[in-house]
């Protein structure tokens, strides 16, 4: 007697498309799915209307060579708040994050379809200057990546390449950036010391400070705390919470507690598909999708 085994493979012809508001609609591959993104508003649990949309992705597919890693992702990211991307490793959340400031451009053999809009304008339009885009949409990586230079030079790098020569202004930027990244008190006496000599947690905050120094609107963070010890993680999380007052923050994390702690909105990715997105508290307490529930209750991933 042949038994039909349950399968988790997603049928490509019936990808479930979940739009920003959480309504489900069936999207068939090859045919433009319905993209009724709600007007530039998201709802908080209190029911009050809050931030406008900063970044909007519409029907994004992404390929490494012939390998499709993102399937028809559509998502809104509200301004001045923290949006978390969660999902098992290899689900495409980092790839999607890297699309937002076109970091994938520097990898050979990648291509995409669909649109990513920053404040309504397409970041992949031919007229877009990637250098300018990346200045506005900064990024912090999983592994802290201080340049082998002094702390001061690390922070001053962005403004310097942008053409700032004024020493007083540079000093000011370095100080404000380090203060915003809550690192100033620890390093103010050794700004000319090597950045490589800092501890892992300090290095990561240095990288955040370095990003802030370029004066971005959006800060993308790719698992910024995954390589840190709990104390450093807590500091980075506090920092993220602080930063959302001035910046739009998107954070990729494999740590669901972290997502719950720092973010207002959460998007769950699975096998290249954006399964569900919504208010963080709602998503964690009352997920609409079976897959989301399985993931957050630890049944896989």
């Amino acid at each position, binding site marked *: 007697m042949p038994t039909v085994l349950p399968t988790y493979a997603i049928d490509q012809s019936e990808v479930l498309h979940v739009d920003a508001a959480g309504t489900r609609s069936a999207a068939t591959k090859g045919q433009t799915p319905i993209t009724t993104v709600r007007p530039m508003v998201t709802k908080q649990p209190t029911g009050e209307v809050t931030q406008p949309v900063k970044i909007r992705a519409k029907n994004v597919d992404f390929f490494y060579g012939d390998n499709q890693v993102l399937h028809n992702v559509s998502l809104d990211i509200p301004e001045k708040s923290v949006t978390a991307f969660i999902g098992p490793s290899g689900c495409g959340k980092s790839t999607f994050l890297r699309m937002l400031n076109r970091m994938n451009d520097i990898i050979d053999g990648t291509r995409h379809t669909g649109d990513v809009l920053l404040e309504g304008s397409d970041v992949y339009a031919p007229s877009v*200057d990637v*250098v*300018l885009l990346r*200045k506005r949409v900064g990024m912090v990586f999983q592994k802290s990546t201080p340049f082998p230079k002094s702390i001061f030079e690390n922070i001053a790098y962005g403004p310097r*390449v*942008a*053409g700032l020569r004024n020493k007083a202004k540079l000093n000011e930027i370095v100080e404000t950036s380090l203060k915003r990244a809550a690192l100033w008190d620890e390093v103010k006496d050794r700004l000319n010391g090597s950045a490589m000599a800092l501890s892992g947690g300090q290095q990561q905050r240095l990288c955040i400070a370095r990003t802030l120094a370029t004066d971005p609107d959006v800060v993308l963070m790719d698992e910024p705390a995954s390589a840190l010890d709990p104390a450093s993680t807590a500091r980075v999380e506090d920092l993220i919470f602080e930063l959302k007052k001035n910046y739009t923050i998107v954070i990729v994390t494999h740590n669901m507690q972290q997502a719950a702690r720092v973010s207002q909105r959460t998007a769950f990715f699975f096998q290249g598909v954006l399964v569900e997105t919504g208010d963080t508290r709602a998503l964690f307490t009352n997920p609409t999708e079976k897959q989301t529930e399985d993931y957050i209750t630890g049944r896989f991933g």
Partner: protein
Amino acid sequence: MSDQHIEYAALLKRRHRISTCFEWVCRIATGSALLFLAVLLAGVIWQAWGWLDIEFLTGFDSRRPGKAGLLAGLWGTSWLILFTAIFTVPMGVGAALYLEEYATDNRFTRLIKLNLSNLAGVPSIVYGMLGVTAFVRMFGMISAADGWTLAVSLGFGTLEIPLPLGRCLLAGSFTLSLLILPVVIIASQEALRAVPPSIRHASYALGATEWQTIRYQVLPAAIPGIATGVILALSRAMGETAPLIVVGAMSYVAFTPGNLDTPMQAVQDPQRVLDAPFDVFTSITIQITNWIEQPKEEFQNLAAAGSLVLLILLVVFNATAIVIRNRAQKKISW
């Protein structure tokens, strides 16, 4: 705020221009290598045109440019490379086997490894000075004036070994061997390292001894890599000039080592083969140098023709190495 943005945008344009300019500078720098190569080859071919003919390849050097040929150099270089290969291959592979398969990481092993990388950087002319003292004069242990000859009678002829060796072909080969030995050892080490340890473990698990494992498993797997390294090293030896001059190669010679002009003579008169290693010699590179230094204009064309022959030989050598490498990559896939 918006002023800043405008300023940034204006600067950004300039930064992009600088970046593009820089890219072109780097591109041109890389392209110039191609240009140099093209000009060099074109120049050599242009000068050699009409001079590289059959008489050039089969004739001996002459004071008259029209009659001068490369035969002595061709035979000299062939003998040199043959003997260099005979000495270097077993010694280089042996040393690499010892360092990779036997040696433990002790002070002596580290000394050998450090020494190898330093030897690879010693100027070739210094090897010539070693060669002339150690091989040609044998450290002056036997003075050239009252030197003697060691005669070994073989069935088909007599091997006459002069002591000290003097400015003979064998001394040149010894010198070139020492010169390329570090290169061969390092290349062989890399080839041996590329053989996965699992092969060795499997062989040991079947009860094979160390040498059996090396002889039947490791060495066969590493042979393509070793062969590639050896051929490249030999092509370097083929292009060497300075050490041979110091060792005492003849710049003008009108006969081949052992008077062996055609391969047939090796069979007809084996004694010539036995004489060749102890005869005086010249090489393609030495002949080229000699022609370059001649005042008559036509000799420059001969130098170009000689260079062209040398380059063609090198291309053949390198092509062989590439073919071996590609074949091995196709066959073995771990």
